[in-house]
């Protein structure tokens, strides 16, 4: 895990800690892990993870990748997100990686893909814009 304080703030937020979200940083590549828990299930009949839980996880991974990508003063704030649900997310762990399409001075554009058993069979994708506050070069 990185010693980046903002990443710790993100992970230390009550909601993120509550649902056990992890961010594994290998070199400059961030992989989000949402370990399976019973209280992530939205529809117990299938059973499938809640679309909101998967969506929230993708948002956290998006924010994490922006923090890792460049020094920021504050947590990124979502402006809009579009989540596509490709397959039911089953009662297993979920993984996700983000690609920052553009990280400017005010706004960043991010795409995130989540999968479970097979990387080539994504369960959901997120495309979103975030408001960011890059730290000034001198202060960094």
């Amino acid at each position, binding site marked *: 895990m990185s010693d980046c304080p903002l990443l710790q703030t993100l992970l230390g937020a*009550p909601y993120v800690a509550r649902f056990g979200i992890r961010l594994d940083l290998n070199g400059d590549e961030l992989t989000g892990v949402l370990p399976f828990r019973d209280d992530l*299930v939205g529809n117990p009949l299938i059973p499938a993870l*809640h679309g909101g839980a998967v969506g929230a996880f993708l948002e956290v991974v998006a924010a994490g990748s922006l923090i890792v990508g460049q020094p920021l003063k504050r947590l990124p704030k979502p402006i*809009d997100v579009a989540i596509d649900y490709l397959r*039911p997310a089953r009662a297993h762990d979920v993984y996700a990686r983000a690609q920052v399409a553009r990280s400017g001075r005010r706004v960043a554009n991010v795409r995130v893909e989540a999968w479970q058993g097979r990387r080539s069979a994504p369960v959901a994708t997120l495309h979103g814009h975030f408001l960011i506050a890059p730290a000034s070069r001198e202060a960094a």
Partner: protein
Amino acid sequence: MTPERQTFLNQLGELLVDGSPHAMALGLSVDSVGEGVAQMRADYREELIGDPETGVLHGGVVTALLDHVCGLAAFTGFGGEHTPATLDLRIDYMRPAEPGKDIVAEAECLRSHGLVAFVRATAHDGDPGDPVAIAQAAFMITQASKAAQERARRDIENGGAS
């Protein structure tokens, strides 16, 4: 709508929230359910804060609330037969919700036919005219949800709703 139909929708609405572990974990509850419309709320809870500096609830709470209320409106929009799966969900976060305030979400199924339903929703923290977020979503009746519904129907007929 007949009183029997309204009672049926009320029961289904509660079943679809109380029966959802994640909705319970977030403390979501149903205010009202009608034909193709639903209103739900998320109570402000410190354990669901997303930004410790400001005390604002995590966006994930709003995401889950909007997903759930849209799903409920789609469910009754489809006639209350099958639980639909979310195809896509687009959310615009207009402003942060005020710390300490509950978030209310109202959803309306704009059209449902065949296998697909289109839903629009607004989330606010007191004033519907000053939304926290707005959402648009599409839902679909899938084979998995049909099969699950069938199992649930048999369970209920056998006397015990799980």
